[in-house]
C-alpha cells in the first residue's frame, strides 16, 4: 500500500500530465518548491518554462492558451508570487481565456498567522477568477485540479486558481486521477430553443439591411465554418470585434471590416443604418458600442450568446438565442432563406473607399519624412506567413497593427482586449511561440508597453523561442498622448519617454537585432527578420506624434466615427 503512495507535489505534476498539459510557465519559490522538485523528475513529459516574473508566466500561459485552444497552465509561489498573477487573471477573466494557475501556500497550520510569504490569494483573486479554491490536504489535490481544468475550459472559458498549502504538497497520498465530467451546480450546455431560432429567422428573412457582428465567441465555440456558411447563404455583411478577428478570413466577400473605437469607418457608421443586427459571440463592449443611447436604435437585434449574464446587459435585444453559436448558427442556417444584399453591401464598399482615401493610403504609403506605424505594419503584413500569429500589446500600435494586419485564420490574433494590459505582448508571444516553434509569431509592441515586461527577453533567450519582435518606437505613451492632444489641449503630461537603447538591450540578451530609422531600410530589415532562424528584435523609429484614425471618441455614437 505504502508503495502506491506518492507526494502531493508528484500528484500535482501527474495531474497536469493527465490533463495533457505539455508546456507550463512559472517561477519557483519557497511554498511551491516541492512541486519544482517533482518537475525535475517529469521534465521529459512536461516542459516547464522559467519566465523572469510571475506576470510574464501568466501572460505566456494566456498566449499559449489563445493560440492552442488548450488550457494554459502556470505555477507561482505564495505571497508576492501569487499576487503577481492578478493582472493576468483579470485579463484572462475579461477575455475568456482558459487558465489553471497553481500557487503554493504556506503550510495549513500557519494560515492566518501572517507567516512568511503568506497572502490570502484566494480572497484577492476571487473577483478575477472564474473559480478558485484552497487545497489543504493531499487527498483533495487531484479532484481540485480535475475540477479546475473542467471549469476553465467548459462553457464560457476563464481562469481558475488553485492554492495548495505546502503540507499538502509534501504529504503522501494515493494517485488515482479521475477527470471531472461535470457537477450539479455548473451547467455547461444549453440546448438552443427552436422557437428562438424561428423568431430570429423571421427577422432575418424579412430584413432589407441585415448586418452581423462576430466576436471571440465564434472562435471559442469553433463555429468558424458555420459562420461562413451562414453568411454565404444569407449574403449578410459581417464585421469583426477586436478578439473576433480571424474567425472569418478578411478575404471573404462578406467581410466588411472591424468594429470599435479605432475600427473601420463603414462597420461603425452603418451599425446605425441596418434594420436587423445579429451579434454572434460578442458582448457589446463599450469600445464597440460607443454611446449606448444612440446604438442601433433603429434595428431589431438578435444576440447569439452562451453566457446568460451577457444578454440584455449593455444592449436590450429583441431575440436572445441562448447556447453555443456553433449550434445556433447551424440551426439558423437551415431556417433562413438564401439571399443577396448587393446594394446594402455596396454601401459598405463605398465607405471603405472613403476610409481608404482619407486614412489608409496616407498611413501605409505616406509622403511625410518620418515612418508611420501603418506603413511598418503594412510591410510586415506583406512579408508574413499566411498563418502567422500576431501578438500585440496595448495602445496605438495595437490598434494600427490590428487595422493593417490581414487575418485569415482563426487563433492568429492574441491581444489584451478587455483589460487593456500594457506589458502583455512580449510574454504572450513567448507563450504563443512555445505552443509551436515552427509557426511564425510576430510580437508588435510599443516603447511604453515593452518596458513593463522587457525582462522576458531573458525567457526568450533561454528557450530560443523564435519570436519576431517589432518595436514601434515613438518615444511617447502614444495613445495617451493622442488623447491629451485631442481632449486635453495638448497638455502632454508625463507621456514623453527618455528611452534606453533597445537594440543594445536585445543584444545583451543575445537576440539578433536591428534598428530602422529610414524608410529605405524598412523592407529589407523586415525580410531579414523573417529569414533569420531564431528570435529577432526589430526597432523601428516612427513619427512621434502620429494619431490613430478612424476614431469614435468617448461618449460619441458609432455614427460619429471620425476619419480625422
Amino acid at each position, binding site marked *: 500500500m505504502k508503495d502506491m503512495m506518492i507526494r502531493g507535489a508528484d500528484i500535482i505534476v501527474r495531474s497536469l500530465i493527465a490533463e495533457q498539459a505539455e508546456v507550463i510557465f512559472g517561477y519557483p519559490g519557497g511554498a511551491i518548491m516541492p512541486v519544482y522538485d517533482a518537475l525535475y523528475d517529469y521534465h521529459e513529459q512536461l516542459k516547464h518554462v522559467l519566465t523572469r516574473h510571475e506576470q510574464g508566466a501568466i501572460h505566456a500561459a494566456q498566449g499559449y492558451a489563445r493560440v492552442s485552444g488548450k488550457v494554459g497552465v502556470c505555477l507561482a509561489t505564495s505571497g508576492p508570487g501569487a499576487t503577481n498573477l492578478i493582472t493576468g487573471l483579470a485579463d484572462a477573466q475579461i477575455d475568456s481565456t482558459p487558465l489553471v494557475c497553481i500557487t503554493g501556500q504556506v503550510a495549513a497550520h500557519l494560515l492566518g498567522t501572517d507567516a512568511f510569504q503568506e497572502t490570502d490569494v484566494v480572497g484577492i483573486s476571487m473577483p478575477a477568477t472564474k473559480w478558485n479554491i484552497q487545497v489543504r490536504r493531499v487527498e483533495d489535490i487531484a479532484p481540485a485540479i480535475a475540477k479546475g481544468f473542467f*471549469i476553465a475550459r467548459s462553457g464560457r472559458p476563464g481562469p481558475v486558481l488553485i492554492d495548495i498549502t505546502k503540507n499538502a504538497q509534501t504529504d503522501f497520498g494515493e494517485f488515482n486521477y479521475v477527470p471531472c465530467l461535470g457537477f450539479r*451546480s*455548473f451547467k455547461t450546455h444549453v440546448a438552443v430553443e427552436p422557437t428562438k431560432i424561428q423568431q430570429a429567422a423571421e427577422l432575418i428573412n424579412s430584413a432589407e439591411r441585415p448586418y452581423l457582428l462576430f466576436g471571440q465567441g465564434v472562435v471559442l465555440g469553433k463555429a468558424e465554418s458555420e459562420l461562413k456558411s451562414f453568411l454565404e447563404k444569407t449574403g449578410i455583411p459581417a464585421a469583426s470585434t477586436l478578439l473576433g478577428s480571424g474567425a472569418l478570413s478578411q478575404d471573404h466577400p462578406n467581410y466588411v471590416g472591424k468594429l470599435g473605437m479605432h475600427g473601420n469607418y463603414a462597420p461603425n457608421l452603418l451599425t446605425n443604418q441596418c434594420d436587423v443586427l445579429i451579434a454572434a459571440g460578442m458582448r457589446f463592449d463599450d469600445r464597440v458600442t460607443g454611446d449606448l443611447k444612440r446604438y442601433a436604435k433603429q434595428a431589431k437585434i438578435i444576440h447569439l450568446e452562451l453566457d*446568460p449574464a451577457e444578454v440584455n446587459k449593455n444592449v436590450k435585444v429583441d431575440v436572445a438565442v441562448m447556447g453555443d453559436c456553433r449550434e445556433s448558427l447551424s440551426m439558423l442556417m437551415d431556417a433562413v432563406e438564401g439571399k443577396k444584399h448587393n446594394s446594402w453591401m455596396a454601401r459598405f464598399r463605398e465607405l471603405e473607399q472613403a476610409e481608404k482615401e482619407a486614412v489608409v493610403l496616407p498611413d501605409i504609403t505616406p509622403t511625410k519624412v518620418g515612418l508611420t506605424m501603418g506603413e511598418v505594419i503594412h510591410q510586415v503584413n506583406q512579408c508574413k506567413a499566411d498563418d502567422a500569429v500576431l501578438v500585440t500589446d496595448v495602445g496605438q500600435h495595437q490598434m494600427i497593427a490590428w487595422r493593417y494586419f490581414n487575418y485569415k485564420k482563426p487563433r492568429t490574433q492574441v491581444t489584451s482586449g478587455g483589460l487593456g494590459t500594457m506589458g502583455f505582448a512580449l510574454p504572450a508571444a513567448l507563450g504563443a511561440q512555445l505552443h509551436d516553434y515552427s509557426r511564425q509569431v510576430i510580437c508588435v509592441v510599443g516603447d511604453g508597453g515593452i518596458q513593463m515586461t522587457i525582462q522576458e527577453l531573458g525567457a526568450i533567450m533561454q528557450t530560443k523561442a523564435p519570436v519576431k519582435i517589432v518595436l514601434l518606437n515613438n518615444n511617447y505613451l502614444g495613445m495617451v498622448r493622442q488623447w491629451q492632444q485631442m481632449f486635453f489641449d495638448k497638455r502632454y503630461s508625463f507621456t514623453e519617454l527618455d528611452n534606453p537603447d533597445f537594440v543594445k538591450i536585445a543584444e545583451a540578451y543575445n537576440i539578433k537585432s536591428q534598428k530602422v530609422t529610414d524608410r529605405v531600410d524598412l523592407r529589407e530589415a523586415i525580410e531579414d527578420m523573417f529569414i533569420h532562424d531564431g528570435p529577432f528584435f526589430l526597432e523601428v523609429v516612427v513619427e512621434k506624434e502620429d494619431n490613430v484614425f478612424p476614431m469614435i471618441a468617448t461618449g460619441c455614437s458609432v455614427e460619429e466615427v471620425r476619419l480625422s
Partner: protein
Amino acid sequence: MKRYTIFVITENFIGILNRITIIFTRRGINIDALTASESRISGIHRITIEVTANEDTVIQLVNQIEKIIDVIKAFYHEDEGVVYQEIALYKIPVSRLDAGLEKIIRQHNAKIIAAEPEFVVLELTGHKEQTQELLEILKGYGLSEFARSGRVAVAKRMLTIESFIK
C-alpha cells in the same frame, strides 16, 4: 427603486458568500439584509438577500450570481411574491416594567423570552414595519439593546430545490 428578495441556492463551500457579496459591492449596491442557512437538503445552503434597486439591476445581479460556479440557482421576487418574516429582540431594564408596558407587549403580540434580574428580553416576529413600530415605542422604556435579523422568506411560486439539482 423597489424592494426585492433574491434567493440563492448554493453548494456549501468556503468563500461562496464572499463571491456573492462582491457582485453587489462592485456595482455599488447596498445589501439591505442577508440571511444564510442550510436548506432542508444537507450540503445545500439557502441565502436570502434583500435589496432595494430597479428591476434591471436586480436581473443583472441575479444573472451574475447564478454565473458563480458553485451556485445552483438564483432568482428574485418582489415583496408580493414572497412570504417573509424578520425577528427582533429588545432588551429592557426590569425597573421599567409596568402595566403600560405589559399592555404594549400584548398589543404587539410580542413575547418575553428571557427574564434576568436586571433586564428582560422581548421578541417580536413580523415585517420590518411592525418591529420598527415597537422599537420606537420601547425607546421610551429605556431600551438598552436591539437586534433585528434579515428576512427569512419562502417564495409563493411552487418550485423545489430538487428541480434545480436534477
